[in-house]
């Protein structure tokens, strides 16, 4: 039997996402999100292998891994009824209060840098209980003190209907949890190969943390086995380039 190759940084992100999703019945994944999609597929595969309650996945842009038949409105209708437990959002900017900006930098509307737009964030952030913020690039230009445009706010005033919101933030360097009472992030763990000082320097907002934050756990053999086999096969339908790249990286370190 050959040696199991050590996990790639992206495999750690995928497993971290799968763990954050533990307990969900239905998770939806938006467009252009291969790592969140892989995390959701890994959780589904792990639950299936363990004989646990099944996890349903709706991956936008997929035919095989998507239940929707009522057009692009169905995701939002589903979410509004509480039928979606988890979703992923990113942001060109994310600030320390959990506000996200998908619109642009500078004075709106004549943004100096214009990003695609808010997509469904101004709604889904309010009604999906477990929104996982995912942004691989961990730099001060992304993680800012205050966003230039609020596509969706991290918290709402009392009396505003809100059944959902930010749950965690996964970056290329670490995992944060969002404290909804305080409206602030708390560093949960640091990914292998990164340090606290590096994270503090790369984060433009202040955050809470333990005196010595832990290290993000690496995937175990079972997780890696499913991830490198079944999950990459499933992922290739929607994200052929990404799946091929992952397989290529695994060959290179072999």
């Amino acid at each position: 039997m050959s040696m199991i190759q050590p996990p790639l940084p992206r495999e750690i992100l995928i497993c971290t996402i799968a763990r954050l999703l533990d307990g969900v019945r239905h998770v939806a994944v938006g467009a252009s999100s291969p790592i969140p999609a892989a995390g959701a597929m890994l959780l589904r595969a792990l639950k299936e292998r363990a004989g646990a309650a099944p996890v349903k996945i709706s991956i936008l842009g997929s035919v095989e891994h998507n239940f929707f038949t009522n057009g692009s409105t169905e995701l939002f209708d589903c979410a509004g009824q509480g039928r979606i437990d988890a979703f992923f959002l990113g942001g060109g900017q994310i600030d320390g209060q959990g506000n996200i900006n998908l619109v642009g930098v500078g004075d709106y509307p004549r943004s100096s840098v214009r990003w695609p737009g808010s997509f469904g964030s101004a709604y889904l952030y309010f009604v999906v209980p477990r929104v996982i913020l995912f942004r691989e690039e961990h730099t001060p230009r992304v993680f800012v003190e205050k966003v230039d445009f609020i596509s969706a706010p991290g918290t709402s005033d009392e009396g505003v209907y809100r059944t959902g919101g930010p749950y965690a933030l996964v970056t290329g360097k670490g995992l944060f949890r969002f404290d909804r009472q305080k409206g602030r992030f708390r560093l949960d763990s640091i990914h292998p190969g990164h340090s606290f000082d590096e994270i503090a320097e790369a984060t433009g907002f202040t955050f809470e943390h333990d005196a010595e934050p832990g290290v993000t756990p690496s995937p175990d053999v079972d997780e890696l086995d499913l991830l490198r086999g079944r999950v990459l096969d499933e992922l290739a339908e929607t994200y052929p380039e990404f799946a091929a790249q992952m397989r290529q990286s695994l060959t290179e370190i072999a």
Partner: protein
Amino acid sequence: MEDLQSLARLVESGMRLALPVDYAGVSMAMVHPLIERGISDLDVVCVPTGGLQVDMLVGAGVVRSVETSAISLGEAGGAPCFNRAVKEGSIVVRDATCPAIHTGLLAAQKGVPFMPMRGLIGSDVLRYRQDWKTVDNPFAEASDPIVLIPAIRPDVAIFHVPMADRHGNVWIGRRRELAAMAYASAVTLVTAERIVDKNLLSDEVTATGTLPSLYVTAVAQVTRGAWPYGLWGEYSADTQELMRYAREARTAQGFSAYMAGFGEAA
């Protein structure tokens, strides 16, 4: 059956145009005929996001405003002409969020002036939309603010489908957003890969995914009419071509050169 030019002639300057998301069936074949018409001041509504088609119309200078939840070329990156127009301030952008566009179309479909939706409160999306209103839920005992979205009633909806029949029924499969656009719009123009002889409504299996001719103004047949986008169940997107557009349209001159070739290819 009509041709592309006669479909384009139904679009006039100043009209509000509904266009679908890039994976739902974009009638790219209509881009050149629309630009050649010499119209201007179109108000585009993206259902609920936009891409190459909207970028080309903006680049050609025929668009006055864009209402959208997002616009990009997907894997090929940002929408170059749109981004340039934003920086120059030459178009009005009405930033929305996907379900707000669906809500506005649904209000039009039902013939009511507005529909409420959750979310939005505290966002800058709402702050910049003077046409959206926040009211107190009249059915709640405690204060419960909720946003009202006015009906979106486009003058024209344009999209592309795999098949239509000779009665003007068009098959949209599970892409129900195409039906939503048609229900809300005064005129619906459809391009189709092929025209079939059988009546799509006479078979229960095809009837469920069919938008009846009641909502369809005109149909034109065009092969590979979504290219370089893909069409569900038919062909996939030509990513290389989208990348080539993204590179060339980085400047206004590059865009013009690309469009001259695109007109010939179409």
